[in-house]
C-alpha cells in the first residue's frame, strides 16, 4: 500500500459490532469454567472464591484499565456489598438474589457519592483520597462493632436456597454455580458496556483527557458514571462472597484487599476484562498451593512477581499471550 492512499474511516457501528462479536476461544473459555464441577469437586469453594475475585477484578478493570483511574481503595465497595448482604441475611432477609441487588445498589450509591471526590483530584491526591477512604471505612467498621461484629467478623448469616431450590452445601457446589452465574451475567453486561460508545469515551479519557474535553465529551460525568457502576459491581462481588461463605470479616474492606485486587488485574493484564479473570485464577491457585509452604513469606514472591511483570511484561500475562498469538499467526499466514 502506498502512503498516498487515505484509508476511509470505518463505520463506527460496524467497528463496535466487530469488537463485540463473540470469538471461539471466548466461548470455549466460558464452557471450560464448568469443568471444575467434574474435574475438581474438592476445590469448588476455591473455584467460587476465584469467581468472586474475578468479578471484583473486572470492576476495578473498568475504572483502572478502561478509564485510567488509579485506585488503591476499591475494597470499600466490596466491603459495603459484603456487609449489606451479610446484615440482610443475619436479620432475616435470607433471599439471595434480592440481597445481591440491594447490596450492589448500596455500594453503587456510596460509589456515586465518592465519585465526586475522585473526579476532582489527580495523581498523588487521587491516590491518597482512595487510600484515605479505605482506611476510614475500616476504622468505621471497627468502631461500629455492635453492627459489624468488629474484628470478630459478622457471624450468624443465614441464606435461603437460591431460587428456592439450590441450597448452599458444604462442598460448595451451589456456591460455585451461583458465583459463576453472577460472574457470567456481570461479564456479559460489562462486555457490552466497554464495546459501546460509552466504553470508547472512557478509553478516550484514559488516552487523552484534554482532547476528549475539546471534542465535547462530558469527561467528569462519564468518569462518575463508570465509577458508580464499578462500585456497584464490586459490591456485587462482596455480596456473593458474604452469601456463599455466610461470614464477613473486617479484611473485606481493608487496604490489603484493595491492593490484592489491583495486583491480580496487573498480573492478568488491564483493559481487556479477561485479564482480571486470569489474574484471579493465577493469584488464588498460587496462594492456595504456596501458602502451605510458607504463609508469612508469600507476599515476598508476590512483590517480586509484580515488579517483574511491570518491568518486563507491561500489559500483563494476557497481553504477553496475545502478542505471542499474533506472532504465531503472523508466521503461519
Amino acid at each position, binding site marked *: 500500500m502506498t502512503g498516498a492512499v487515505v484509508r476511509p474511516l470505518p463505520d463506527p457501528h460496524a467497528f463496535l459490532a466487530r469488537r463485540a462479536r463473540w470469538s471461539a476461544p471466548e466461548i470455549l473459555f466460558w464452557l471450560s469454567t464448568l469443568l471444575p464441577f467434574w474435574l475438581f469437586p474438592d476445590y469448588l469453594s476455591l473455584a467460587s472464591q476465584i469467581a468472586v475475585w474475578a468479578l471484583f477484578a473486572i470492576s476495578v478493570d473498568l475504572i483502572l484499565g478502561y478509564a485510567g483511574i488509579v485506585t488503591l481503595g476499591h475494597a470499600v465497595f466490596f466491603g459495603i456489598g459484603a456487609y449489606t448482604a451479610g446484615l440482610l441475611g443475619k436479620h432475616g432477609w435470607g433471599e439471595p438474589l434480592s440481597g445481591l441487588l440491594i447490596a450492589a445498589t448500596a455500594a453503587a450509591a456510596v460509589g456515586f457519592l465518592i465519585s465526586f471526590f475522585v473526579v*476532582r483530584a489527580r495523581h498523588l491526591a487521587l491516590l491518597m483520597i482512595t487510600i*484515605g477512604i479505605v482506611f476510614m471505612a475500616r476504622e*468505621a467498621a471497627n468502631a461500629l462493632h455492635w453492627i459489624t461484629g468488629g474484628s470478630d467478623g459478622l457471624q450468624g448469616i443465614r441464606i435461603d436456597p437460591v431460587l428456592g431450590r439450590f441450597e448452599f452445601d458444604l462442598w460448595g457446589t451451589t456456591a460455585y454455580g451461583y458465583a459463576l452465574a453472577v460472574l457470567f451475567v456481570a461479564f456479559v453486561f460489562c462486555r457490552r458496556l466497554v464495546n459501546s460508545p460509552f466504553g470508547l469515551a472512557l478509553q478516550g479519557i484514559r488516552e487523552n483527557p484534554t482532547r476528549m474535553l475539546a471534542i465535547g465529551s462530558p469527561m467528569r460525568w462519564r468518569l462518575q458514571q463508570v465509577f458508580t457502576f464499578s462500585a456497584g459491581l464490586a459490591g456485587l462481588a462482596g455480596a456473593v462472597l458474604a452469601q456463599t461463605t455466610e461470614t464477613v470479616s473486617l479484611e473485606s474492606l481493608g487496604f490489603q484487599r484493595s491492593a490484592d485486587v489491583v495486583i491480580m488485574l496487573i498480573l492478568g493484564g488491564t483493559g481487556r476484562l479477561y485479564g482480571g479473570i486470569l489474574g484471579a485464577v493465577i493469584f488464588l491457585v498460587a496462594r492456595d498451593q504456596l501458602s502451605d509452604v510458607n504463609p508469612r513469606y508469600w507476599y515476598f514472591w508476590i512483590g517480586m512477581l509484580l515488579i517483574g511483570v511491570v*518491568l518486563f511484561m507491561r500489559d500483563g500475562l494476557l497481553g504477553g499471550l496475545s502478542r505471542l498469538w499474533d506472532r504465531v499467526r503472523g508466521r503461519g499466514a
Partner: protein
Amino acid sequence: MLTTLAGVLFDGFAYGMLLFLMSVGLSVTLGLMNFTNLAHGSFAMLGGYVVVVLTERAGWPFLATLPAAFLITAAVSVVFERLLFSRFYRRSELDQVLVTIGLVFMATAAAAYLFGTVQQPVQVPSFLRGAWNVEGVSIGVYRTFLIAVAVVIAVVLVVGLETTRLGQQIRAAVDNQRMARGLGIDVDKAFALTFAVGSGLAGLGGGLAVEWVGLDPAFGLHFLVYVLIVVSMGGLGSIGGSFAAAVLIGVGDMACKYYVPELGAFLIYALMVLLLFLRPQGLFGRR
C-alpha cells in the same frame, strides 16, 4: 484540663517531628521527579532495624547508631534508585505505584523472615529516659531530644536549599525541570543526591521512632500512609509545607487518640480526604 491539653500538644508536636523527618524527603523527591515512591516508609523501617540490630546485637551506643541509620538507608536507597526506580521516571503513575508497592511487600516479608513479627525493643541511654515535670505537664526527655534533632535538621535543610549551589539547582529543577536541564544543571545527579538524603532522613526518623512506637514488619506500610498524608497535605516539594502538615497531623492524631479513642485514626483520614477535595494541590502546594 489545660495541663492535659499542653501535654497533648507537646506529644503531638514531637510526633509531628517524627513524621516530618520521615516525609520531607519524599516531598522533595516527588516534587522533583514526580516519582510516586510508596517504598519510602520501608526505608524508614530499614533505619529502624539498623538501629535495633546495632544497639541490641552489636552493642553500639544508641547515639552512634543514628548516623549509621541515616548512612546505610541512604546508601541502600541510592542502589534502588539507580537500578530500579530510574527506569520508571517516564512511565505511568500506575507503574510507579505498582513497582514500589511490590517493594513494600518484599520488604515486609523480608523483615518478618529475618526478625519475626514481634516488636523489637531498643535501649536508649539513661540520660534520654524519664521526663521533666513543668507546671504539672510531663515533658518526656526523649521526645524533647526528638524535637531538637528534627528542628536542627529542618533548619539545615532550609538553609542548605536556600544558600548552597546544589540547593539552588534542586529548587530550579523542582520549579521547571526542562528549563533547568536546558541551563546545564545535571538534574539526574541532583535527584540521586536528593533521593539519598531524603531516604536517609526517613531511615533516621525510623531509627528515632523505635523507642516510641516500636518496630515490626508492618511499620513500613503503617507509616507510609501517614507520610503520604503529610506529603499530599503539605504540597509537593515544599519543606515548610511538610513541616506544617507534619505538625498538624501529629497534633491532630495525638488529640484524636486522647480525646476520642473509639474513633481511632478515622478523623485524620477524614480530614485528609476533605482537604484534598477542597485543595487537591495540598495546603502549601502550587501545583
